[in-house]
């Protein structure tokens, strides 16, 4: 399709067979597979460069520090951050969200202050605010989701009135909905609020420009974008980071420590207490090189084409038996297909439970996620306790969709009563 070479061949895990059939990995919204280049970069780091960073006086330690900071520079370039010092490495996006709520929220929010989120948020952008509500009495406001899977902005002005922060996903991990972040950031700023973006599902799939987004904070994770688990990113404007108190305390994040107290390091290290995840940063850097080589515009084009193919062929084969949630136009969504199988449209009765669908698909080597996708409030809106979710990435092709399609027919055979 879009790519001039066999991308799947770059991913050693995808050469495996499960249950006597080639693996079909359709769970990339959960975590992505890793290309050989990423695996090699991390192995090479440990074979040639490993030392602790920012403190060794020998050549090896300097190289390790360069590896970490070089990766940071790659991240900054990838998201068009104005400065490398604005890129804070975290453990994952969840830790980024907690850094935001604990550090910025802790210093800037008090009783009655409103944070606006939406019904399509991942728990990572819900629970930290619930925790702050319990501790400090902040008010949590919810932008609703409409039947088509879009944010319902009819009451936006009222929701934003007096709000201190708007924190929204750029792309839903359940519906694939792409939210208009520049527009929402403009509205947030007009209301005097700051704008935070959960970009965990966005950065891996679409060219990202934090400045064009108009956001104040952008948070994402490495493992969904071909990088390793254990590294995420919080980007924020430098003046915000400078004013925020530290998150975790310890080594690396200090300038001076006395028996009386401490002073904090410069950004971004102020927020990176302890020995950082250097090999993971190197792996993330290699993932960014890999994605840049494919070209993010090509990545997006590939996913729109494959999403269109999946929506068309699944609907052709299964008709009313399948209900795919989220926007109906492939160009307006990401490659995340949450669906309910069986039943007759609105009626939940007769549907094959997602856990059972996933079990039958697994037997055909097809990996999908079944459950609430860490978005229980959204499940309530959809009127489902769970959905089955197939999510696409660069290594998927039409044959993967065809196998999903055939395996769904097998599930139907087993469970249609």
């Amino acid at each position, binding site marked *: 399709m879009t790519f001039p070479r066999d991308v799947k061949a770059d991913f050693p895990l995808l050469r495996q067979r499960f249950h006597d059939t080639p693996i079909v990995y359709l769970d990339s919204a959960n975590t992505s597979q890793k290309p050989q280049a990423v695996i090699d970069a991390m192995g090479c780091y440990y074979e040639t460069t490993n030392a602790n960073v920012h403190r060794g006086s020998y050549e090896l330690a300097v190289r390790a520090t360069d590896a970490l900071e070089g990766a940071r520079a790659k991240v900054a370039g990838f998201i068009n951050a104005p400065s490398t010092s604005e890129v804070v490495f975290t453990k994952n996006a969840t830790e980024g969200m907690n850094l935001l709520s604990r550090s910025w929220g802790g210093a800037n929010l008090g009783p009655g202050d409103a944070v606006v989120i939406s019904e399509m948020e991942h728990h990572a952008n819900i629970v930290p605010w619930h925790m702050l509500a319990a501790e400090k009495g902040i008010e949590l406001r919810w932008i609703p989701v409409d039947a088509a899977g879009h944010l319902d902005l009819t009451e936006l002005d009222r929701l934003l009135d007096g709000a201190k922060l708007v924190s929204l996903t750029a792309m839903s991990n359940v519906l694939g909905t792409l939210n208009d972040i520049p527009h929402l950031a403009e509205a947030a700023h007009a209301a005097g609020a700051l704008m935070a973006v959960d970009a965990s599902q966005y950065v891996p799939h679409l060219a990202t420009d934090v400045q064009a987004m108009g956001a104040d904070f952008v948070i994402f994770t490495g493992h969904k974008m071909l990088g390793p688990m254990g590294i995420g990113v919080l980007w924020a404007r430098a003046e915000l980071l400078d004013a925020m108190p530290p998150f975790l305390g310890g080594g690396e994040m200090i300038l001076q420590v006395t028996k009386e107290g401490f002073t904090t390091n410069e950004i971004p290290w102020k927020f990176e207490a302890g020995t950082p995840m250097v090999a993971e940063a190197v792996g993330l850097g290699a993932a960014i090189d890999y994605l840049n080589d494919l070209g993010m515009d090509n990545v997006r084009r590939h996913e729109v084409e494959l999403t269109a193919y999946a929506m068309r062929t699944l609907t052709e084969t299964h008709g009313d038996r399948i209900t795919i949630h989220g926007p109906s136009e492939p160009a307006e969504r990401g490659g995340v297909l949450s669906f309910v199988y069986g039943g007759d449209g609105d009626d939940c009765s007769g549907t094959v439970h997602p856990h059972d669908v996933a079990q039958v698909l697994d037997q055909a080597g097809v990996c999908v996620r079944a459950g609430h996708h860490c978005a229980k409030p959204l*499940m309530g809106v959809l009127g489902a*306790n769970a959905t089955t979710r197939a999510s696409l990435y660069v290594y998927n092709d039409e044959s993967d969709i065809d196998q999903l399609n055939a395996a769904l027919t097998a599930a139907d055979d087993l469970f249609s009563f």
Partner: protein
Amino acid sequence: MSGLEDLYREIILDHYRSPRNRGELETPPAVRADGFNPLCGDEIVVYIDVDDSGTINEVAIGGQGCSISQSSASMMSAAIKGKTVTDARRLITAFKGLMSIHETDIGGDGSEAEMGIDDQAPHISIDNTDDVSLGDLEALRGVVKFPVRIKCATLGWNTLAQALDEASVT
């Protein structure tokens, strides 16, 4: 589709299609317990009505979930109806024993012997049942080959344990 027969036995699918004792009971006199599987969002509601002699006179099952959680709860309801609280607790222990084999030995080689799916497995004995035979619950034995589904099978039983605790204090 090969490999799935052990999980989706016909008797399991039958209980899934036609769940026994489905519904609600008035509380009080009945007690109610709610069980959730946070992994998949499945929920089971167990109602039991225990008389003064400690016999479970009525049982009803509500909630929704996958074929394994729903059929296991259905079989459980049929197995405990008319039994004493003591017998029901004994049954819970035996059933969870059957299901915990793999949970405690997940690093095994995956063979049936390793997982204890052989004659050493604990047997569930149910005396004088009316509409349920021993075979019904035994059908769930195959679930241990699919570790992620064990929580589905035990959801109803954990919820029953809560309900029994509730009944003993009221």
